[in-house]
């Protein structure tokens, strides 16, 4: 039915006519189908009985008129007649048939008319019944609507009343929950300060239950030291001179411990229903108070450390003006703190140390370094120089404090002076050892000097004779030798003088090969006297080292003299002293002095470097000890290894001079 208008609501205008057309079509279809069915049935019956009966056509006509209405009824009638005529034509012509079958035709029509009348009556009766029912239904609906309206009015009234009641309850609940759930403690008290109500926060703050608190007054839970004040305040409320009170005060908890709270008390005026009350709000500030106290204690502790420390402590601002200085520091430099505040940090530093200090501070300021410590000199107020060690760092600026330098200063004057004295005595000892060695060498040194002197005398005399004989070219040759030999004698004397000198050590860049050669200039005579041959293997590829020439000469001389002594007992084979130099694997220079003596007794191997240990009859036992301290003072190392096939090799290494190669 609705399938012809699939996209439209069935309630569109014209749906009734579509429905009626469809209903009419169905009626006519029913008529055609009914007649066709009757025809088939009749043919079937004639086939079996041989006698046609037309009863089924009556049924078809009646059904068509009954269900389809008048039109289909007539159509069925016409079709039935047509079927009768065409199917049963062989029985005669129409007229014949009509004559014969007229009653049948009439019966068809009567059947049709009767069906139509019956159908019409039934439809009419149905219509009357339907209209009566509809009327009743409308009446019922009207009554129902009236009842619903009355009911709705009643419901609205009831809902309104409920809402009002709920609002009142919600308000009360809100206030109650506000009171109960507040994290701030709350209470109400009467004007005698007795509690009327307390909330959970206040109860847990003091450790009492609500009932316990209701038996107490505000005075009783106040810390004993503050009760008098509280009483006065309550009196002021009672007299009306105070409406509000706000303070940090201490309470006493149930367990007897004090509790800091911030309390706000407000006067609540009386109403018709209630008397005047005091309303209190408490905030627990115990932790804050404790933190404050801890902070104060900490500050006090630091202040005490600062004030009583035996080391100097001072701070300066980012512009290096002294900000604070403790007593120890003031004693150290002789200035008072107020005098120091007028000074810049650098003013204290000894003029010679200012450059280094300024550079270090610069590194702190630009962040290249976090802290530094340095040993340097201060000038006291009285002009005296003191040695100090300062540990300094930069504390960066925060939101609350600007950047500053905290420095710890230790007076190390005594230690530094002792060190200097020790260095001086070590240098003196080294010099004595050197001069002693020179004494041992005196004979061979004299030989080394006399040798060129003898040559000079001989050459000079020869020269004189050549001049007498007018042989100028030979005279010139003699004179040239005089000069060369005089130079050679001077060379030896200079070496001896430098080794005996008492000059302060001085670091210079030098070639260690030159040092070896300078020592050999002095020791060569001794080698000759002891019939020792020298194998010299000095590498040309040797880095410069930084050192004191005299001290390093002393080391080499000491090793050479030890080697000479070690070979004193060698007989029956050549005595050979091997001196080599080479570049160290890790950079720096390595010098080795090797003898072919009997070697070092393993039992003494460890002790030979210790002071006052000697295997020689007249030895002082300081040579290797001094040599070791000289080499180590140069950042190097001195050690011994057994030589092959016999003897000992002493080696010392020195680091490469920093600027060499530049």
């Amino acid at each position: 039915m609705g399938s012809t208008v699939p996209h439209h609501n069935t309630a569109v205008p014209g749906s009734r006519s579509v429905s009626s057309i469809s209903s009419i079509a169905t009626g006519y279809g029913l008529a055609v189908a009914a007649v066709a069915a009757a025809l088939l049935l009749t043919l079937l019956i004639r086939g079996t009985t041989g006698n046609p009966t037309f009863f089924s056509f009556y049924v078809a006509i009646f059904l068509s008129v009954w269900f389809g209405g008048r039109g289909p009824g007539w159509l069925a009638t016409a079709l039935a007649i047509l079927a009768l005529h065409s199917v049963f034509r062989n029985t005669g012509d129409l007229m014949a048939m009509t004559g014969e079958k007229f009653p049948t035709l009439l019966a068809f029509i009567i059947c049709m008319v009767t069906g139509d009348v019956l159908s019409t009556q039934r439809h009419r009766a149905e219509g009357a019944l339907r209209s009566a029912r509809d009327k009743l239904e409308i009446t019922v609906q009207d009554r129902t609507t009236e009842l619903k309206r009355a009911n709705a009015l009643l419901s609205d009234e009831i809902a309104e009343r409920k809402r009002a009641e709920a609002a009142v309850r919600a308000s009360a609940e809100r206030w109650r929950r506000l009171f109960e759930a507040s994290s701030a403690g709350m209470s109400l008290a009467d004007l005698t300060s007795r509690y009327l109500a307390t909330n959970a926060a206040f109860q847990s703050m003091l450790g009492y239950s609500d009932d316990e608190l209701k038996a107490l007054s505000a005075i009783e839970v106040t810390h004993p030291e503050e009760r008098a004040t509280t009483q006065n305040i309550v009196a002021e409320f009672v007299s009306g001179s105070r409406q509000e009170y706000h303070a940090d005060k201490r309470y006493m908890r149930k367990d007897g411990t004090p509790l800091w709270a911030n309390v706000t008390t407000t006067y609540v005026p009386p109403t018709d229903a209630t008397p005047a009350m005091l309303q209190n709000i408490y905030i627990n500030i115990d932790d804050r108070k404790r933190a404050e106290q801890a902070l104060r204690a900490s500050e006090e502790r630091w202040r005490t450390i600062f004030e009583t420390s035996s080391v100097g402590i001072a701070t300066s601002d980012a512009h290096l003006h002294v900000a604070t200085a403790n007593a120890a520091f003031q004693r150290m430099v002789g200035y008072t703190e107020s005098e120091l505040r007028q000074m810049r940090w650098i003013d204290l530093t000894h003029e010679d140390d200012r450059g280094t200090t300024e550079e270090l501070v610069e590194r702190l300021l630009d962040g290249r370094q976090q802290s530094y410590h340095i040993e340097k000199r201060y000038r006291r107020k009285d002009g005296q120089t003191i040695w100090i060690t300062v540990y300094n760092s930069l504390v960066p600026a925060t939101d609350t404090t600007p950047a500053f330098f905290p420095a710890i200063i230790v007076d190390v004057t005594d230690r530094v002076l002792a060190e200097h004295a020790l260095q001086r005595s070590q240098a003196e000892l080294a010099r004595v050892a050197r001069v002693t060695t020179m004494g041992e060498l005196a004979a061979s040194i004299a030989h080394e000097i006399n040798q060129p002197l003898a040559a000079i005398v001989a050459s000079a005399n020869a020269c004189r004779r050549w001049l007498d004989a007018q042989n100028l070219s030979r005279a010139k040759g003699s004179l040239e030798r005089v000069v060369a030999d005089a130079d050679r004698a001077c060379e030896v004397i200079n070496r001896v003088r430098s080794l005996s000198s008492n000059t302060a050590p001085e670091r210079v860049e030098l070639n260690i090969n030159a040092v070896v050669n300078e020592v050999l200039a002095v020791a060569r005579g001794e080698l000759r006297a002891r019939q020792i041959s020298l194998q010299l293997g000095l590498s040309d590829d040797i880095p410069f080292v930084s050192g004191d020439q005299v001290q390093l000469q002393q080391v080499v001389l000491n090793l050479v003299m030890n080697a000479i002594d070690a070979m004193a007992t060698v007989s029956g084979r050549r005595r050979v002293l091997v001196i080599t130099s080479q570049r160290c694997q890790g950079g720096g220079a390595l010098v080795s002095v090797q003898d072919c003596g009997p070697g070092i007794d393993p039992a003494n191997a460890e002790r030979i470097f210790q002071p006052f240990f000697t295997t020689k009859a007249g030895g002082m036992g300081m040579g290797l000890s001094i040599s070791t301290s000289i080499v180590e003072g140069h950042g190097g190392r001195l050690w011994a290894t057994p030589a092959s096939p016999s003897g000992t090799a002493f080696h010392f290494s020195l680091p490469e001079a920093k600027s060499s190669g530049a």
Partner: protein
Amino acid sequence: MNDPTPMVLVIDDDDSVRRALRDLFESVELKVTVFASARDFLQTKRPDTPCCLVLDVRLPGQSGLDFQRELNERNITLPIVFLTAHGDIPMSVRAMKAGAVEFLTKPFREQELLDAVQVAIDRDRATRADEALLAELRRRHDTLTPRERTVMRLVLAGRRNKQIAGEIQTSEATVKVHRTNLMRKMQASSLADLIVMAARLGSSQTSPHSPEGNQSL
């Protein structure tokens, strides 16, 4: 003397000293040969001329004194003037005992050195002359027949001709002939002359040096 030119032999390991000494000796018209070591010296043939050895006490490998002893052991007679850069008494005593001509300390006075060298050369020249004479006497002695040597020994023992004839069982005339022949062969002009010659020959077997060497110059 018309001897060949004397020569100074210098052994010193110091090159500049060697050169200076050569210069000095050449300036006084002495021939000089220098050696850097005793080893070099021994490997060189000694010149056939009066020589003097100027020797440094300190030598590489072997000291001058040891070298002196070695020369003595090899019967090499060569007057030595020692030079040392620093003299010490025991060393010089040893050197002088071993026959050194002089022991000079560097730096030496030129004249002392030249004088010592002159003395040494003279001594060598005398030694050489002495040795030459002795060699001649031996040569002459070698020409004697055994019978003549026997007669000579008995003559030197102070026997008369008759006693000699009796001892060797021959006639006195025969002894006279032997005696005349040996005097001629030995070129002795008198019995005294022969005695002196025999003394030289006899002493040469115990001592290489003649204390009277200078006399024959």
